[in-house]
C-alpha cells in the first residue's frame, strides 16, 4: 500500500518535453492509410454509379452529360462525406482514391465543400445549371 504511486510519472513529466503539441504551429504528418478527401479519376470511370448508390451519406452524385463519350461530372459534397471509403471499395474500375493529407477541411462557407471533378468544359456546363450551395435543400433531399 503506497501513499502515492504516480510520483515518478509526475517528476518525469516535469523534466521531459510534454506530450501535447501546439497544433497550428506544429503540424504532424498523417499516416499513409489516413482517409481524407476523395479524388476521382475521369479516365477510368464508366458511370455505373455504384459509388453513389452505396454512399451512406449521399455525398456523391454522378452527372452524366454524355454516356457514350464518357463525359461525366463527379459532384462530391465534402460536408456530407463520412470518409468511410465504401465508394473506393464499391468502384470496380478503381477510379476513386482517398488522399491522406487533406484533412483540414473546415470552412466558413459551403462553397469550398462542394467539389466538382471532371473536364473543365463539362464542369462549367453543370455549374451553370446548379443551385446555390447555401440554398435550402429541396424536400426529399
Amino acid at each position, binding site marked *: 500500500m503506497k501513499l*502515492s504511486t*504516480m*510520483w515518478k*510519472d*509526475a517528476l518525469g*513529466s*516535469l523534466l*521531459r518535453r*510534454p*506530450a*501535447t503539441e*501546439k497544433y497550428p504551429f506544429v503540424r504532424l504528418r498523417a499516416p499513409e492509410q489516413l482517409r481524407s478527401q476523395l479524388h476521382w479519376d475521369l479516365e477510368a470511370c464508366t458511370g455505373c454509379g455504384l459509388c453513389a448508390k452505396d454512399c451512406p451519406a449521399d455525398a456523391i452524385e454522378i452527372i452524366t452529360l454524355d454516356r457514350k463519350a464518357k463525359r461525366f461530372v463527379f459532384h462530391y459534397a465534402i460536408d456530407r462525406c463520412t470518409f468511410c471509403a465504401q465508394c473506393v471499395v464499391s468502384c470496380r474500375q478503381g477510379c476513386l482514391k482517398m488522399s491522406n493529407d487533406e484533412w483540414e477541411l473546415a470552412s466558413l462557407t459551403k462553397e469550398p465543400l462542394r467539389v466538382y471533378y471532371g473536364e473543365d468544359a463539362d464542369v462549367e456546363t453543370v455549374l451553370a445549371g446548379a443551385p446555390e450551395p447555401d440554398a435550402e435543400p429541396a424536400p426529399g433531399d
Partner: protein
Amino acid sequence: MSAVIALVIFPGGVCILLAGMLYEWFDRKLVARFQDRIGPRWFQPLADTVKLLAKEEVVPDGVNGQLFFVLPVIALAGAMTAALYVPVFGLAPSFSFSGDLIATIYMLSLLTLCMGLAGANTLNRFSLLGATRTLTQLFSYEAPFLLALLGPAIVAGSWRISAIADYAADHWLILTQPIGFAVALIGLMGKLELPPFDAPEAETEIVAGALTEYSGRGLALFHLGKGVELVVGLTLVAAFYLGGVANPLAFFVKTLVILLGLAGLQALFTRLRIEQTVGLWWRYGALLVLVQFLALIVWEGWVA
C-alpha cells in the same frame, strides 16, 4: 496619501490582483507540466478575468438580490485587506498592529465564508451541497492551520506579523518546527480548496459547488479573491517558516518553491470525500499540531 496609494495601487490594490493572477498561472502551468501537458500561456488568468467581466451576469430566481451582488465584493475585499498586513513582494507590510495575525487569518476565512453564504443563498441543489461542504471543510482545517501558524508566533513572542517575520529571518523555523511546516503547507491546500481537498468544488459531482450560479462579474471577483488568497497564504508560510521575506527576490524564490511543492501535491492524490477530509484533519492534522505544540512548550520550559 501614501496609505491611499498602498491601498489602491501598490502593494495592495491593482498590484496584488496582478500578483494573484500571476501565481494562479504558475500553479496551473506547474500542474499541467506534472501531467505531461503544455499548460496555459502567461496571460490566461488575465484573459479569463477580462472575459468574465465582459459577460452578462445572470441573477437566478429566488435569491436575495442584494446578497447576491454584495458577497463577491466582500470576499475580494477581505482577501485584499488581508494582503495589507503581510509582507507581500518582500516589502514591509503597509499596516501593522499587534494581533494582526488573527485579523489576517480571519480575513482569509471571510472569503470562504462568503463563498459558503453565496452557495446557501441560491435554490440550486448543487450550490446548497457545495455550501455545506465548504463550511464543513472550513471547520476541519481551520484549527490545525491556525495552530500551525501560531507555533512561530509563540517562539517569536508576538502576535504581530512583521515581528514574527523579523524573528523568522534569523531562525529558519522549518528546521526547528518541521511538523508545523507540514501542517501549515497542507492546511494551505485545504484553505485554498486545492486537490485533494477540493470536495467543495468537485467538478464531477456538484458542478461548481457553491459558485454554480455565479457568472460574469460575480464569478470574476471570486476568482480574483482566490488568487489573492493564494498569494497571501504563500507569503505567510514563506515568511514564517522559510526564514522571512527580506527583499523581493527572496519573496519570489521562496514562494515559488512552496508553490512547486503545492503543485506536486495537487497532482499526486485522488480527491477525498468530504467526510474523509474531516476525518483526516481532526485525526491526523490536529494530533500532529498538538504534538508540535507540546514539543514547543516543553522546549520553552526547558530553555527558559
